[in-house]
């Protein structure tokens, strides 16, 4: 019992995740049924000749769209618990496979962009802290004020114009590889290319990644940077820092201490803009011809693919929820004040 009380903060937070996904799945289920158009008639219209009512009913059953909405909902829930999201109405492939064949490449892009943004943020934060140069500090501040403004695809267009059209240093933004097909093992293109030992393809993809990842880094660094600079400014005047100065702690250590303490303010924003990262990745993929998760969403809306769309929604939201969960947990771990139920035990 005492274990539970001490660890309640993360146990409760963790327990909420399946519930959230379940509720959201139900919302998605009803949402996609608002789509105009009937998937059965879409599927049948591609066949030639007249179609008998029996055939329509057969197709309906085959698609899992027979019975009332409630029957379908029960089946959907049942599938959800087993990790089965049904079969695509258009391609017939399991939705879960369709989603997971595309999701890793999107996540790879996001992770690369995030790592780059994080590193750039640390570098700029270091410059900001190390050099008291007014012009440098002002320019870092101005750059950080670009947070959540210019959309990532606009930055990418600028990069393409400069590095492809004018300078011609980088290849045309047309997919990950110019020839051949990507090997598929884990779904993460870079990892797969390394695993199959295909160094040529790996290099090619790496070069293709320069512009999209640079665009993401340039776009998302200010988000982290505003928080980080704010954190640095706050930490510098904290009593802790003053005490260290007064106690004659070496400068290097003071810097390190301030640097580390300000990092927790960066973690907070990760959860907040993960959604916009996915949105940004969708536009970037469409711009560079990568064809990731966003293309699946557009396709399933256009082809009235109920199951694919609801599966797509559930997975995307689950990814976002998991990202938020991780950020929440890290935050609570770093800062006990954020743990729910803490104040009740204090008083």
């Amino acid at each position, binding site marked *: 019992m005492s274990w539970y009380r001490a660890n309640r903060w993360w146990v409760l937070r963790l327990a909420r995740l399946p519930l959230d996904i379940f509720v959201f799945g139900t919302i998605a289920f009803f949402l996609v049924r608002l789509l105009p158009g009937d998937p059965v008639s879409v599927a049948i219209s591609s066949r030639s000749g007249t179609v008998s009512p029996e055939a329509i009913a057969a197709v309906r059953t085959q698609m899992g769209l027979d019975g009332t909405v409630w029957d379908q909902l029960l089946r959907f829930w049942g599938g959800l618990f087993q990790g089965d999201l049904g079969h695509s109405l258009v391609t017939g492939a399991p939705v879960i496979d369709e989603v997971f064949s595309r999701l890793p490449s999107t996540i790879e892009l996001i992770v690369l962009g995030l790592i780059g943004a994080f590193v750039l943020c640390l570098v700029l934060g270091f410059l900001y802290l190390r*050099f008291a140069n007014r012009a440098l500090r002002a320019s870092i501040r101005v750059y950080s004020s670009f947070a*959540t403004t210019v959309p990532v695809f606009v930055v990418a267009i600028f990069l393409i114009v400069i590095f492809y059209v004018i300078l011609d240093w980088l290849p045309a933004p047309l997919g990950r590889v110019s020839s051949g097909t990507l090997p598929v093992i884990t779904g993460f293109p870079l990892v797969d290319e390394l695993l199959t030992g295909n160094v040529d393809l790996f290099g090619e993809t790496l070069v293709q990644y320069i512009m999209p990842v640079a665009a993401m880094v340039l776009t998302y660094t200010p988000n982290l940077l505003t928080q980080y600079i704010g954190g640095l400014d706050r930490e510098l005047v904290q009593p802790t820092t003053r005490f260290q100065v007064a106690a004659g702690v070496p400068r290097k250590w003071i810097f390190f201490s301030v640097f580390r303490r300000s990092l927790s303010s960066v973690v907070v924003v990760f959860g907040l803009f993960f959604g916009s990262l996915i949105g940004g990745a969708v536009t970037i993929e469409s711009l560079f011809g990568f064809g990731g998760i966003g293309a699946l*969403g557009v396709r399933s809306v256009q082809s009235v693919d109920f199951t694919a769309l609801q599966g797509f929604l559930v997975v995307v939201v689950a990814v976002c929820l998991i990202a938020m969960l991780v950020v929440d947990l890290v935050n609570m771990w770093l800062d006990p004040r954020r743990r729910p139920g803490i104040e009740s035990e204090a008083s």
Partner: protein
Amino acid sequence: MAETLIAKTVQAPPRRPARKRFGWLRVTLAFLPLVAILVVALFAPLIAPYDPVTTVAASRLPPSAAYLFGTDAVGMDVFSRTIFGARVAVQFGVIVALCSTIGGILIGTFIGLSESSRGVVGWIGRLLNQISDYLIAIPSIILGIVVVGIMGSSDFALIVAITLCLIQATIKLTRAEVLRVRREAYLEAAKLAGESPLRSALVHVVPNSIGPAMRNMPLVFGNCVIILASLGFIGVGVKAPTPEWGYMISSALSSLMLGRWWPAIFPAIFVALSVLAIAYSSRAIPQVWPYLAANVKKRFRTERNSRA
């Protein structure tokens, strides 16, 4: 150098010095970017030399005196289209900002007031709060794709989609403010004066808690421009010939691969400029607002006194 840094920051906080000296210059500078966009949008037909949706010349002409930004793949004037693009963006921005602010204030007030109350009202409030929590979990572009897919591609669908993406912030801001106002003693006084809950909500709670939501409005406007351009870019935005920046960029990609950069770069520059301008104004206006309000009120009062 590092030593001076520590000494300096410990003596004086590195926060920007409080800006006490306001002037009309500052006020003008704060409003200028926003007003410039609005002016371009308003007077687009006067500024643009050609009709934005008709072919006026050969395709992909480079920029020249006659065609400032060149022509695009079907021979439409890129300059005219870009200028009219501001008009489209502003139209959507204003409507979405109004919808999400008014809707957000109403929903946020309802959630704030119904919180911790029992019965049906409490449940509805909690449900709305939960839904608005889920809304941030969905990336706005994904939400846009789905809503536009469901409602069909129309201006109304786009407005609904973008409003759904942006209303959450207004709801949260208003809710927090309502929760603060709710504890104020004047609500108790109103109750003791016999005012009904509905009346006191409309007369006391709403006017006293709309501040943050109103200050958030320029930001909603800016975000709307971003989302509209992004949706247009991936092909679920406004319909084809309409001069919308995101759609213009995506349709110019084929030209870009051929090395013709002008149809893509100019709308991109305008998206960036307008979004930065709105962001700047939305940060600067709240800073000069107290000065402006105080001066306007003073002027108004002296006028009234001189009349009396």
